[in-house]
């Protein structure tokens, strides 16, 4: 299946910078491209023409910059059309995107436009012995992951969770940059943006050294967790169940569809330990888990597991630490 169209990475712009996940993917894609014996091509779309060299420095052999003043904001219809044109013209074997909200919005639409396969939210990428790209996705319920390929259609579209690959160090660059200047007008946009409200105090759990994470077993009492987090200089995080229950903002959701964190220590309270959650704490330095059920899978993913009720334990911790 390996064509010479290359391994393509869609580098998503946000404001006047690339999304970190796009650069993380470039680092890993460099190795994937070498494994497949294909060139690495970075593709971006935005208002700035001059951003190509940066992508070359992160390892791209070739860079395609689609530039137009109207591309300062993402629009499903316009971006899908622009990428479709490039992909049809160059037939890459693989297209990788960051699993950001806009990245997912685009990938899902584009995959159907091109009638091709999509593997979402992968946490690792490997080149199999038959020269196929395999995207690994944590499986249901814990313990296993599934390797997904797209053997017969191209490109194989894959979205990658932020934080799973390390940020590469930029090199000297030097890859060829091609700038595409499409003609565009407002009428081609599929939507009109009538408001944007930035998050006041944006939480970024990927930058926190200490996390206190609650799951279903908290029963929604995140104020208790917040008190503990405050005392140990940490942030509060949550499992999907807790975030979906509306107990905390979705930005605090950890795991397969939330954020992948790398704290020094994480205290996990009342979470069963489904693999979709634990992938988000696997890179933690030390994991402490409290759960009432001694059989809970979370204890398999913990350095220190405590069987017990979380409320009195947290209250005791708050009392002890607050009194220091």
């Amino acid at each position, binding site marked *: 299946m390996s064509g010479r169209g290359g391994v393509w990475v869609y580098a998503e712009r946000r404001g006047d910078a690339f999304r970190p996940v796009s650069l993380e993917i470039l680092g890993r894609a460099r190795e994937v491209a070498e494994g497949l014996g294909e060139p690495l091509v970075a593709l971006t779309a935005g208002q700035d023409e001059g951003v190509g060299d940066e992508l070359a420095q992160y390892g791209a052999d070739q860079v395609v910059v689609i530039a137009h003043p109207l591309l300062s904001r993402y629009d*499903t*219809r316009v971006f899908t059309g622009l990428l479709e044109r490039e992909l049809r013209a160059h037939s890459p074997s693989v297209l990788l995107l960051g699993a950001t*909200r806009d990245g*997912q*919005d685009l990938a*899902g639409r584009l*995959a*159907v*436009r091109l009638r*091709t*396969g*999509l*593997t979402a*939210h992968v946490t690792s990428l490997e080149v199999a012995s038959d020269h*196929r790209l*395999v995207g690994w996705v944590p*499986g*249901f*319920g*814990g*313990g*296993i992951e*599934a*390797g*997904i390929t*797209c053997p017969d259609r191209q490109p194989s579209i894959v979205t990658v969770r932020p934080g799973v690959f390390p940020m590469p160090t930029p090199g000297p660059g030097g890859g060829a940059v091609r700038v595409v200047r499409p003609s565009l007008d407002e009428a081609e946009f*599929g*939507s009109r943006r009538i408001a*944007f*409200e*930035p998050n006041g105090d944006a939480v970024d759990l990927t930058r926190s050294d200490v996390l206190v994470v609650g799951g*279903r077993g908290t029963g929604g009492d995140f104020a208790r967790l917040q008190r503990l987090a405050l*005392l*140990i*200089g*940490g942030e509060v995080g949550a499992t*999907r169940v807790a975030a*979906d229950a*509306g107990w905390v903002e*979705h930005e605090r959701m950890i795991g397969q*569809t939330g954020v992948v964190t790398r704290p020094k220590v994480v205290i996990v309270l009342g979470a069963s330990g489904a*693999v*979709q959650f634990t*992938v988000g704490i696997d890179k933690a330095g*030390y994991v402490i888990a*409290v759960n009432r059920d001694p059989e809970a899978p979370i204890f398999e*993913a*913990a350095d*220190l597991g*405590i*069987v*017990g*009720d979380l409320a*009195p*334990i947290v209250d*005791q*911790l708050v009392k*002890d630490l607050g*009194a*220091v």
Partner: protein
Amino acid sequence: MRLVVCLKVVPRPEEVRVDRATKTLDRAGVRSVINPADLTALEAALRLRELHGGRVTALSMGPPSFVPYLRVAIAVGADAAVLLSDRAFGGADTLATSYTLAAGVRSMGGADLVLCGDESSDGGTSQVPQGVAEWLGYSQATYVDRLEHPSAGTVRARRVLEDGTETLELPLPAVVSVLGGTTEVRFVDYDRWAMAQAADVEVIDATSLGADPGSIGLRGSPTVVAGLREVHKPGRRRELVTLEPAAAAVRVEEALRRLGVPRSEERSPSPSEPSSA
């Protein structure tokens, strides 16, 4: 408004166990639920109907055993329910699933607005709504927590992004994926329960749907599961203790101290520690 809500029936995540020997999912005895985010989408549809009138149809794809779940959707408030059910639909990935659901919407004569949960709690690809939109040629907004219908032919959707929210105005027809948990979902209406049990859930097979055999099920699914393996987990110490709260707290404090957490200068002020320190 003609509103269609796509519902997926998923196993309860906490009940699925992995058979470590066969590396397969043990679903025996596992109960199922309507995917939580899809119930949020249903709620959003019901609220739009209350404000603007119209009809809400629940749409799902799966075996005949899903019919009772569609009755739950009717009991919650849907006017009608359609189940796309055929062995030929089995093994579908997101491309084939979105094709089939889109064909289901077409079989109703189309819709003004199709609502989906942003993601299913089992598959979790978060890609089907966008796929449905593309197959139908509808506009789309994903990860939406607020929906309005300000004027004929448009929908206003607030998308929740990593760094803020953006409010978009889209032309109808459109597909919207609704973030789970962003709206309180109403309880089953018990006055409707008996009616729902007797309600007619329309079951449509591949032939009646007029589906292209090459676009459904396994044949219509370009992705392949090439392998399953145990998740490579970092080596954890897995020390497990059962302790009273006081002793448990001491163990945690010891661990935190050893890890240098919190560094004393970072500790937030407490009554015994003036903030000017």
